[in-house]
């Protein structure tokens, strides 16, 4: 494009047009459409997002940072995730040391936001697996989630005071549903004879659930199944012995872990293996599309395997 060959007037038009286009291009591409859509509340996981949505109703848009099916232990953040955090103004997390990955992400994102740990105010158990320090899996007891709801309601009210009344109503409705869930679980679990209420799982996750509904957690195979460790023959043998001698009729696994090893243990110890519990993430639609569905699904699997 040999601009200098054109007469001066034409040159001016071209240059100014180019500049104008450039400016509109820059201005017309905001990182977020602030001011025209509902403010975004970010939850760390899919089940927290679901719970928050039940309290928030339509007033705010709630998104989950972790996608469906992701285990926080193997979570690899992408640049989009950092952007999501940067744009959020209210971040709902579980707390109790669950979200290891968050520290660096928050630093990278910069900016300011309110971070609410919904398990604050509850008394977490110590974590036997020594992975987290305390056991963060409070949400597996719906009664804890009732406290979560209250904390979320407060946070949303503070964030968006105009919605106070609506949040109150939503919270009450959902809390009633949670109580109904609790009653339903008790009823289901009573189908299992007491001596068969044994949970062997791949994750020290069932502490609160076990306490509330009268189960015993026999042994975990977290050392064997964690993504960074290779189990030794000794560990595997010890686990098989443990499962055999406990009389546990089944072992239960979170979906994302390694089923081949679990099958090995199950075959040798003569128990059945359930591999599709959803403990840390919802699914896309059925069977665990919402938190309550997730709990019902897990309980159904457990009851069917043990009764």
């Amino acid at each position: 494009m040999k601009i200098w060959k054109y007469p001066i007037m034409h040159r001016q038009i071209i240059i100014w047009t180019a500049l104008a286009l450039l400016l509109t291009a820059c201005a017309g591409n905001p990182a977020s459409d602030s001011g025209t859509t509902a403010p975004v509340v970010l939850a760390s996981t899919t089940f927290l997002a679901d719970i928050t949505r039940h309290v928030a109703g339509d007033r705010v848009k709630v998104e989950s940072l972790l996608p469906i099916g992701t285990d926080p232990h193997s979570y690899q953040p992408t640049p989009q995730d950092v952007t999501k955090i940067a744009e959020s103004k209210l971040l709902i997390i579980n707390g109790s040391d669950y979200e290891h990955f968050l520290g660096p992400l928050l630093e990278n994102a910069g900016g300011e936001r309110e971070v609410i740990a919904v398990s604050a105010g509850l008394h977490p158990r110590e974590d036997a697996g020594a992975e987290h320090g305390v056991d963060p899996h409070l949400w597996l007891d719906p009664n804890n989630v009732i406290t979560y709801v209250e904390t979320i309601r407060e946070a949303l009210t503070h964030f968006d005071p105009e919605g106070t009344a609506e949040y109150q109503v939503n919270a009450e409705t959902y809390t009633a549903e949670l109580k109904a869930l609790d009653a339903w679980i008790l009823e289901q679990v009573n189908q299992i004879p007491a001596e068969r209420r044994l949970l062997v799982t791949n994750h020290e996750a069932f502490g609160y659930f076990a306490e509330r509904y009268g189960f015993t957690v026999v042994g975990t195979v977290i050392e064997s199944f964690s993504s960074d460790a290779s189990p030794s023959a000794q560990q595997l043998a010890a686990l098989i012995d443990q499962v055999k001698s406990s009389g546990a009729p089944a072992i239960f696994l979170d979906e994302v872990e390694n089923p081949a090893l679990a099958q090995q243990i199950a075959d040798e110890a003569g128990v059945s293996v359930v591999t599709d519990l959803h403990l840390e993430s919802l699914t896309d639609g059925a069977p665990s599309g919402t938190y309550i569905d997730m709990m019902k699904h897990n309980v159904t699997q457990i009851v069917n395997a043990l009764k």
Partner: protein
Amino acid sequence: MPFLFAPLQYEFMQRGMLAAILVGIVCAVVGTYMVLRGMAFFGDALAHTILPGIALGYLVNGGAREPLFWWSLGTSILAALGIGAISKNSQIKEDTAIGIIFAGMFALGIALISTVRSYAVDLSHFLFGDVLSVSTSSLWLILIFGGIVLLTIFAFYKEFTTLSFDPVLAATLRLPVGLLNNLLLTLIAVTVAVSLQTVGVALMVAMLVTPAATAYLLTNRLSHMMVLGAVLASLSGIIGLYLSFYLSIASGAAIVVTATAFFLIAFGWKRITQK
């Protein structure tokens, strides 16, 4: 001798030992030619090159594990023949060509896996392998395909040996050199695919090369080298599993450390007796 039998009451130990022995034998026999022809890097690269094939198989089959063996078999053979073709026909040295393909394919595999983030953990088990989670059906696959590899080498033993020692002689004898080379590459590929779930990517090259290299130090005859390599590999597998059982260390690593220890002993002994 209760300590010898205690681990064997467990079925997973019985299967694991059998798998380690079978894989060890096949790898050592094939590895004999690889050691003599300087193909260790090729073997390592091949193991890594399988990753995108596995990732694809995983994505296509919605997370099912059984078809993965066939995907890794297919990818492995294609990769072996591909590397063979590229290094023959270009001005780039074989070593460089292998390095480029190896890294590129491995990265492709990781990229593919990262698109489905929830599967990442499961696939890493396939990569690291676990001799302890070998199922009965896996054992049959190892037996059948390992058997095919061994029979083929037995059938073409003198052709492969002649080709490895003196390719020009092979050419003057009008042996089908191109075909034989591709056959050997295919056998290596099958061996890697069959052994991968047992040993894993990181340790694959050790199983191919270390017992054969140890045997090389200790014997003067090719046939003895193969047999001795197979014996050493089997012993490494057995001892490694016992170590994993009694000392609670990762099984794959224990096997490779044992095999390497055998090598170092042979190496040291040879130096001492040569003085």
